[in-house]
C-alpha cells in the first residue's frame, strides 16, 4: 500500500520566484491548518501512544503511580520469560495455521463465484456476512457450536462415529477451535478483494491462453495466479497484520486458557496491563510485537515489491 507513493515522487516544485514561494508557503500553512484535526486524531491515537509505549517499556511500575527507569531490563526479562515466549509461539502458530488456509479457501471461492452467470453479488455478500457481526457475538455463537456436550460440531462428528472433542477445554484442541473460527469469520474479506482483482484481469489473456491450448488448472496456474499476485500480496500482508494481533476471540472464548495454551501476545499484554497492573512489562511485549509485525511486513513488501501497486 505504501510502495506506490514511495517511488512515484511528485515533482518537487520549489518556485524560484520569491512571491510565488511566499504564496506557496501560505497555501501550505492553510492546508496544514485544515488537516490538523484529522492529523491530531490519527497521530494522537497511533504514533504518540506508540512512542509512550516505547518509553514505558524502559520503566517499571503500574498504570497509575510512580514509574522507575530501568533501561533495557524488561527486554532481557522478556527474552527469557516462559509465558511471553509461549504467547509468541502461539501467535505465530495461529498465523501459520490460519493464513494459508483462509487465503486458499478465499481464492477457490472467488474463482467459483466468477464462474457463475448470475447471483455473484448475493454470494459475495453472504460470505462477507460474518464480518459485520460483532466478534463478541460471533465468538459466543462459536462457543456454542464447539461446546463439548451440546455443540452441533460434536454432534456432527458423532454422526460420523468420531469421538467427542472438548474443543475449548483441551489444550491440544483449543487453538484449532479458534483458528477454525477465524477462518469461518474472516475468509469473506479476502473473497471480496480477490474477486475484484479477478474481474480486472482482461478476457484476452484467457482467450490467448486457450488458443495456445491451455485448459483448466493450467490456465489458473499460469495466467490467473501471476496476474493475481499483487492482490494476493495485499491479502497476505493484511492477514499477517490481523492475525498477529489476535485478541477478541481469545478474550471471549478462553481468556487465554487452559493454562496459557491459547494466549496470544495481544491478550497477554492486556492481561499484564489491566489485570496484573504490570505496565512496564506489558509495554515491552507490545513493542516487541510491533517490531515483529514491522519486520514481517517489510519482508512481505519486498517479496511482492516488483508487482504490488498499492
Amino acid at each position: 500500500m505504501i510502495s506506490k507513493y514511495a517511488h512515484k515522487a511528485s515533482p518537487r516544485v520549489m518556485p524560484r520566484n520569491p512571491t510565488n514561494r511566499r504564496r506557496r508557503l501560505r497555501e501550505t500553512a492553510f492546508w496544514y491548518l485544515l488537516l490538523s484535526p484529522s492529523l491530531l486524531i490519527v497521530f494522537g491515537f497511533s504514533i504518540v501512544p506508540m512512542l509512550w509505549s516505547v518509553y514505558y517499556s524502559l520503566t517499571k511500575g503500574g498504570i497509575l503511580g510512580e514509574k522507575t527507569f530501568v533501561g533495557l531490563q524488561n527486554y532481557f526479562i522478556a527474552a527469557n520469560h516462559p509465558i511471553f515466549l509461549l504467547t509468541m509461539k502461539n501467535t505465530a502458530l495461529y498465523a501459520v495455521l490460519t493464513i494459508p488456509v483462509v487465503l486458499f479457501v478465499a481464492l477457490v471461492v472467488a474463482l467459483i463465484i466468477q464462474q457463475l452467470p448470475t447471483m455473484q453479488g448475493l454470494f459475495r455478500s453472504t460470505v462477507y456476512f460474518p464480518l459485520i457481526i460483532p466478534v463478541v457475538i460471533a465468538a459466543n455463537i462459536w462457543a456454542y457450536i464447539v461446546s463439548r456436550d451440546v455443540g452441533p460440531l460434536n454432534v456432527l462428528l458423532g454422526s460420523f462415529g468420531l469421538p467427542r472433542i472438548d474443543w475449548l477445554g483441551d489444550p491440544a484442541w483449543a487453538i484449532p477451535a479458534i483458528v477454525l473460527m477465524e477462518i469461518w469469520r474472516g475468509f469473506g474479506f479476502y473473497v471480496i478483494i480477490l474477486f475484484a482483482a479477478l474481474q480486472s484481469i482482461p478476457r484476452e489473456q484467457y482467450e490467448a491462453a486457450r488458443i495456445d491450448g491451455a485448459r483448466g488448472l493450467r490456465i489458473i496456474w499460469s495466467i490467473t495466479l501471476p496476474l493475481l499476485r499483487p492482490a494476493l500480496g495485499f491479502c497476505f500482508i493484511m492477514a499477517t497484520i490481523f492475525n498477529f494481533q489476535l485478541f477478541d476471540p481469545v478474550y471471549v472464548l478462553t481468556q487465554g486458557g487452559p493454562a496459557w495454551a491459547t494466549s496470544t501476545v495481544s491478550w497477554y499484554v492486556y492481561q499484564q496491563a489491566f489485570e496484573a497492573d504490570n505496565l512496564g512489562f506489558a509495554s515491552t511485549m507490545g513493542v516487541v510485537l510491533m517490531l515483529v509485525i514491522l519486520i514481517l511486513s517489510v519482508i512481505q513488501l519486498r517479496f511482492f515489491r516488483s508487482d504490488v501497486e498499492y
Partner: protein
Amino acid sequence: MLANLGGIKSKRGIFIWRAFCYLILILISLATVVPFLFMFSTSLTESFTMMSYPPTLFPDNPSLANYWEIVFNFQNGLFLRWFFNTIFTTVCITAGSLVLNTLAGYIFAKKEFYGKRMLFILLLSTMMVPGAVTLIPAFLMINKLRLFDTYWAVILPGLASPFGIFMMRQFISSLPTELIEVSKLDGASEFRIFWSIIMPLSLPGMAALGIFTVINSWNSFLWPLVVLRSSTMRTLVVGLSTLKSEYITDYGLIMAGAVLTVVPLIILYTLFQPYFVEGLRMGSGK
C-alpha cells in the same frame, strides 16, 4: 464467463459444471450463515438450561419472552440505555469522520503543498501500529484529559482514520480537476468548492465509507471496554460481553440481546450492500 475453463464445449457439460458451482457455493453460504441461525433459535427458546440438546434450528415452543425480558425487565431498562449509547456514539463518529476524512482526502487528492508525500506515507504507516502498543497510553491520555467513562472517550479516536482518508483520497482523485479550476475562476471560495462541489460529487464514496464506519463503531469492543466503566455508559457489544459474567447465565436472554444488537446492522448491510463491496474494493487500492 469462464465456463469453458475446463475446456467444456457441450451445452450439457456447461450446465453440469454450473450446477456444480452453485451447489458448492450454496453449501459454503450455509456454513457461513447457519451458525447465526442458532443464535436466533436460542433467543426464541425459553429455558433454564444452557442450550437445547440435540441442537435445533426450530424450537418446539418459540416465544418472544426473552426479548420482552431483556428490553423491559432487565435492570430497569439498562438494555435500552446501551442501545441509546451505541446509536449516539455511532452517529457522532460517522458524521464527524465523514466530514474530516473527506476533507483530508480532498486535500491529499487535489492540493499541492510542502511535505505532502511524506505526510501521506506517515499517515498510511500508522495502520501498521498494533493496538497492543497504543491501547495503554491512549487509555492514560483519555484519563489525563478527564474523558474517562464519557461518550467523548469513545467518539474522539473514531473521528478520523488513515483508512478513511486513504479511501476518500482514492475516490476524489478520480473526480475531474478542471471542475475545481472552473469554479475557482468563477470566484468560488475554497470552502464553497469543498462544500458544494466536492462533497456532493463524493457522495458514493462517502456512502461506502459511512456504512463501513457505522459497522466498525457499532461493533467496536476493546476500546469501549477499557474506557467505559459504569454500567449505564456501556455500548451494546460491551454490555453483552458482561452479561454472562455479571448478571445471568440464561443463554436465551443473551442471545435475544445479541439478535437485537445485530438486526440494525443486517438491515443496513442489506440496504447498502453495493456501496459496501465497492468501498472494500476502493480501500484495497484497486
